[in-house]
């Protein structure tokens, strides 16, 4: 039996919509599952106190600090490098051998698994350069890891700035650098910000790479040379050790809320970007 074109379209669309609905269902399930089990245990004490007896009791304050330190450092190092790379690729050079090599490097870097970044960060930063398992090692490793994302999003944002803006600026007797700094970057800033926020989200979620570079010390870090356990790693350890599930769920809920918040922020920035570039 052959289905008529219209009938086969109906069938195909039904199947694909079902799969799409299932995907949305999975997302909703994951988020609600974690929030429902975790949020009730997220109290002020939990957020503001140090863990006791390996995380069975107490809170996650040192891990919050550690996560912010490691991720923040990664993004702070990566953002200027990534934006400068994007400026070079878009404003200071033409398509050619050089840009092909740079893009290939960035694209490949984007595909390298986090465990490889972890191995590298361990031998290079922690052992080779003597930084030890520390916020510094972790931050530098993450910086390398999120660099391709920042390059790509910045490049897109910069390319979206109308060419005519540059012409006007040149026509008014401004140098290329002034034009880049005061016209192009100013217009591209929300778009670049979106990339940076998303990179921050990725660094916060990262586990394998920070495990091998920032270590898992539970104390409140005193300097960049201290080891510090991040939230994601803390959650992994709690979940694996089967320590009280309430603490694990609460930690996961904090992670999910942070992820949702950062995505919302990125969305807001993107909207502003499009409004500006109308």
């Amino acid at each position, binding site marked *: 039996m052959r289905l008529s*074109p*219209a009938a*086969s*379209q109906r069938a*195909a669309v039904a199947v*694909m919509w079902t*799969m*799409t609905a*299932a*995907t*949305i269902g*999975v*997302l909703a399930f*994951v*988020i609600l*599952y*974690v929030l429902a089990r975790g949020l009730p245990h997220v109290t002020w004490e939990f957020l503001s106190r140090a863990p006791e007896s390996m995380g069975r009791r107490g809170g996650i304050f040192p891990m919050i600090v550690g996560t912010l330190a490691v991720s923040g450092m990664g993004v702070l190092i990566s953002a200027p*490098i990534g934006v*400068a*790379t994007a400026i*070079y*690729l878009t404003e*200071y050079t033409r398509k050619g051998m*050089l840009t092909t*090599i*740079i893009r290939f*490097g*960035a*694209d*490949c*870097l984007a*595909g*390298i*698994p986090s*465990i*490889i*970044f*972890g*191995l*590298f960060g361990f*031998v*290079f930063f922690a052992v080779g350069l003597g930084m030890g398992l520390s916020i510094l090692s972790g931050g530098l490793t993450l910086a*390398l890891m999120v*660099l*391709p994302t920042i390059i790509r999003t910045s490049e897109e944002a910069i390319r979206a700035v109308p060419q005519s803006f540059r012409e006007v600026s040149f026509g008014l007797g401004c*140098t290329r*650098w002034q034009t880049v700094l005061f016209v192009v970057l100013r217009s591209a800033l929300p778009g670049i910000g979106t990339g940076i926020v998303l990179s921050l*989200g*990725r660094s*916060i*979620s990262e*586990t394998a790479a920070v495990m*091998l570079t920032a270590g898992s010390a539970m104390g409140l870090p005193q300097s960049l040379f201290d080891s510090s356990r991040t939230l*994601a*790693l803390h*959650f*992994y350890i709690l*979940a694996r050790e089967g320590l009280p599930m309430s603490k*694990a769920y609460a930690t996961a809920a904090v992670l999910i809320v942070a992820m949702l918040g950062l*995505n919302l922020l990125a969305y807001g920035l993107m909207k502003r970007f499009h409004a500006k570039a109308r």
Partner: protein
Amino acid sequence: MRQDRIIRFILMLVAFSAIAGLALIAFFIFKEGVPLIFQVGWRDFFLSSEWHPSEGLFGVFAMIMGTLMVTAGAMLIGGVFGLSLAIVMTQFSGPRLAGALKPVIELLAGIPSVVYGFIGVKTIVPLIRDHLGGPGLSVLACSIVLGVMVLPTVASISIDAFRAVPRSFWEGSLALGATRWQTTCMVMLKAARSGLVAAVILGMGRAVGETMAVIMVAGNSLAIPDSILAPVRTLTSNIALEMGYASGLHRKALFAAGVTLFVIIMILNTAAITLSSNRARAKGGAK
């Protein structure tokens, strides 16, 4: 313009940091890992399943097989669902609906892998154990969790590939009286082919490289799994599990596993990049 040249030069140096980073990573992973492969002998490293670090046996064959199996499973699930999502978003929904579906992809990509792994342990693993048998921690559980994790990668790159197809192709087909579904199958899938293949390849890269979620749901036993319900250990999870206490030759062997992983990933990456740049060139040439 002297100032202009100086700035250009500085920016160029900075722009090389991505490729320099890649080169550094390759150099250090290879430097740590490759000597061991020669020391053990490449046959005993790649083609043996005997991984007993205390006895100096470092065979990763079972882990390579394990990685391939969970990757295949993940691509089956993530590929089909991701492609469906991309088709629904680009072919069968208006801009508003497509705009509403986009955050779904972004949020799926944003959830930490440890959370995926944990939910897999709490929901999928017991389901498999109770209804299908086996320990639950298995190739199947791992494939499902990884499938969800690679879905956003496959979907977002497929969407880009579909969007890159000239609108005239689509309109031309519809104008000839084809239904949207026929147009999708006969015109769009064909025109976006290389981009879709790149999407699947990059998804594979994600699956091969994923670590933490895999550790949690795979069971991590060292044998080659004999069914999809058997536990499995992948290259990545092996590194993450043992790196904490490994030293000496054992640590070097983990780096050698990293070398294996790195090579697989670079092959996949290069294939995907070549495919998408071919597409860009074809588009430029057709102009």
